[in-house]
C-alpha cells in the first residue's frame, strides 16, 4: 500500500486566532507583533499583499500602518496555544498516527485511511477544523513528508486548489516542481539555496533530478535525503511522541533599559519561575543553569557589555527556589554597574526525567546553601496556579515588574480566563 502523508497547516495562524473572536476584522489588514511589540510575526493576506515582510521592525512600516489602517496586535500566546490544542485534537480523529510539528502544523499518516478519494478526505479535514475551531487550514498530501509539505505550500499559494492538494501522482508532481523555486523546499535554507543556485539548481525539479549521492558529497546527508523524499522515497519518519525538551530557555527584552542589580535579578527570578514550571510540566529535572545578561547591540553610542555564567547543580532539581538562588549567585558574579541592560535570560540544560535516579549526593552538602528540593511544595504551587493563574509567585520575582515587555495591543484571553470571554449581544 502506498504511503500517504498529509501536512495540515493553519492559514496565518495568529491572525486567524484573533479573527475568530473579532469577526469585524475579517478581510481587514492586520498583523501580530513579537514580544515587546517589536517586529512583525504574523500577517493577514491583506498585509502580505502590501509587501510587508515577516520579521520587519514595526518602526520601519509605521507609514504603511497609518496609510492602510492596519490593525496591530501584541502576541497573545495564551490564546494561540489554546486554539492550537483545539486544532490538534480535532485533527486526531482523522488519522491513527499524527505528529504535531509546530504550533500550527501537524503531519497525519493517512496510509490506508482514504485511498479511494484523498482529495475529498482533505476537504473533509479542512471543513471540520474550520467549523470546530474557526481556524482555516490547508492540506497538502504526498508519499513523503517533504512532498506533503510542498503540496501544502502549493495549496496555500494557488487558490485554484481549494486549499487541498495531493502530490502522489508523479506527473502532477513534475508539473508543480518545475515552477516552484528550490528555496521553497522543506529544510532547504537560504544558504543552501544560494549554493544550489550556483550549481544551476533553481527549481524544485532541478533538485529532484539530481543524484542523491552527488548532492550528499557536495552538501550533506539531510539535503541528499530531501532529494530522495522529493522522488517519493520516505526518509523522514513521523515523530509521534513529542520528545521532552532537552533545553529550556526563557528570555525577554525589557520594555526599558535596566541599570540596577535588583531589577535584573527580579527579571531573572521571573524567568526561573517560568522555566521551572515548564520543567515540572514535562516531569523533568535539570542539572545545569545558565544565565545571560546584555546591553542593546543597537545602542552603539553606549558602552556594551554581555556575559553569561553557568552553574552545575549539585543535585538535579525542579524546584524554582533552587533555580532562583543559583541565578542570584551567578548574577552576582557577572553583573556590573554602569551599563544599561536590554535583555536577560535563563537556560536549563542537562535535563532528564524526574524519575531517573540522579546522582543525588549522599549528603546534600549544598556547598552553596541552596534550599532543599521540595517537590510536593512545587506541585502544590503549580496546582494552585493552574486554577488561579499567577496566584502564587516567589517574592524574588518582584511585585512591580516594570521591566515587563510591552504588550500594549494584546487581545483578551478569550478561551482561558472567565473575566475575558467574548461578548455577544
Amino acid at each position, binding site marked *: 500500500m502506498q504511503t500517504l502523508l498529509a501536512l495540515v497547516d493553519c492559514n496565518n495562524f495568529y491572525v486567524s486566532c484573533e479573527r475568530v473572536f473579532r*469577526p*469585524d476584522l475579517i478581510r481587514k489588514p492586520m498583523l501580530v507583533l513579537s514580544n515587546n511589540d517589536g517586529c512583525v510575526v504574523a500577517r493577514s493576506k491583506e498585509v502580505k499583499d502590501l509587501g510587508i515582510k515577516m520579521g520587519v521592525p514595526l518602526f520601519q512600516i509605521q507609514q504603511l500602518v497609518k496609510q492602510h489602517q492596519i490593525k496591530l496586535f501584541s502576541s497573545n500566546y495564551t490564546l494561540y496555544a489554546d486554539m492550537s490544542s*483545539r486544532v490538534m485534537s480535532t485533527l486526531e480523529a482523522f488519522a491513527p498516527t499524527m505528529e504535531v510539528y509546530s504550533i500550527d502544523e501537524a503531519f497525519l499518516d493517512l496510509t490506508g485511511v482514504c485511498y479511494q478519494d484523498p482529495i475529498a478526505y482533505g476537504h473533509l479535514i479542512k471543513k*471540520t477544523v474550520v*467549523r*470546530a475551531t474557526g481556524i482555516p487550514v490547508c492540506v497538502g498530501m504526498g508519499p513523503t513528508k517533504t512532498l506533503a509539505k510542498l503540496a501544502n505550500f502549493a495549496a496555500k499559494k494557488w487558490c485554484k486548489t481549494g486549499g487541498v492538494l495531493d502530490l502522489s501522482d508523479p506527473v502532477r508532481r513534475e508539473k508543480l516542481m518545475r515552477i516552484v523555486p528550490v528555496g521553497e523546499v522543506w529544510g532547504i535554507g537560504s544558504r543552501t539555496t544560494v549554493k544550489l543556485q550556483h550549481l544551476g539548481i533553481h527549481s524544485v525539479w532541478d533538485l529532484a533530478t539530481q543524484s542523491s549521492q552527488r548532492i550528499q558529497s557536495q552538501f550533506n546527508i539531510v539535503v541528499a535525503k530531501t532529494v530522495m523524499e522529493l522522488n517519493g522515497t520516505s526518509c523522514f519518519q513521523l515523530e509521534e511522541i513529542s520528545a521532552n525538551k532537552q533545553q529550556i530557555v526563557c528570555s525577554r527584552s525589557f520594555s526599558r533599559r535596566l541599570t540596577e542589580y535588583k531589577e535584573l535579578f527580579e527579571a531573572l527570578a521571573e524567568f526561573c519561575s517560568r522555566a521551572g514550571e515548564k520543567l515540572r510540566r514535562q516531569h523533568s529535572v535539570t542539572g545545569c543553569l545558565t544565565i545571560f545578561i546584555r546591553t542593546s547591540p543597537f545602542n552603539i553610542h553606549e558602552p556594551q557589555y554581555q556575559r553569561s555564567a553557568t552553574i552545575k547543580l549539585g543535585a538535579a532539581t525542579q524546584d524554582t527556589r533552587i533555580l532562583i538562588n543559583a541565578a542570584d549567585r551567578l548574577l552576582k558574579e557577572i553583573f556590573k554597574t554602569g551599563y544599561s541592560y536590554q535583555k536577560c535570560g535563563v537556560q536549563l540544560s542537562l535535563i532528564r526525567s524526574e524519575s531517573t535516579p540522579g546522582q543525588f549526593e549522599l549528603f546534600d552538602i549544598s556547598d552553596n546553601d541552596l534550599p532543599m528540593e521540595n517537590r510536593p511544595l512545587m506541585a502544590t504551587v503549580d496546582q494552585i496556579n493552574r486554577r488561579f493563574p499567577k496566584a502564587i509567585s516567589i517574592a524574588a520575582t518582584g511585585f512591580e515588574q516594570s521591566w515587563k515587555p510591552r504588550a500594549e495591543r494584546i487581545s483578551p484571553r478569550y478561551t482561558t480566563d472567565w473575566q475575558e470571554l*467574548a461578548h*455577544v*449581544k
Partner: protein
Amino acid sequence: MAIPLFSGKVAAGFPSPADDYIEKNLDLNELLVQKPAATFFVRAQGESMLGAGIHPNDILVVDRSIDPVPGKIVICALNGELTVKRLARDNEQWQLKAENPDYPDIVIYEELDMVIWGVVTNVIHAL
C-alpha cells in the same frame, strides 16, 4: 471541580458504611461539554434573548460543531459583531429572531454579512 457522588447517607463521626459505594465524581464538563475542542464560552450582553432564559452577564456554552438547524439558538457574526438569536426559517426565508418583543427579527438576505459562529447548548445563569 470534582464532587463525589454517594449512593448512601454519610454518618458523621463514624467510618461511613457507604465508603465502599462511592461510584464516581460528577463533573460539570461531562454535562455541558460534548466536544471540548469545539466548545467555547461567551458572555451574553443585552436583553434580546430574555424569553429564552438568557440574561445579561450569563455565560453561554457554544458548540461550533453542531449543525445550525432552524429552531437552534445560535451565535452569529452579523456585520462584524457577535450576536445571539434564534435561527428560524419561515416560508423559505431564513431569520434571526430575538426572544423579546422589544427587538425586531432580522431577515437574512444574501448580501447581508452574516456567518453562523456556533450553536448555544446551555446557559449558565448565576442566581
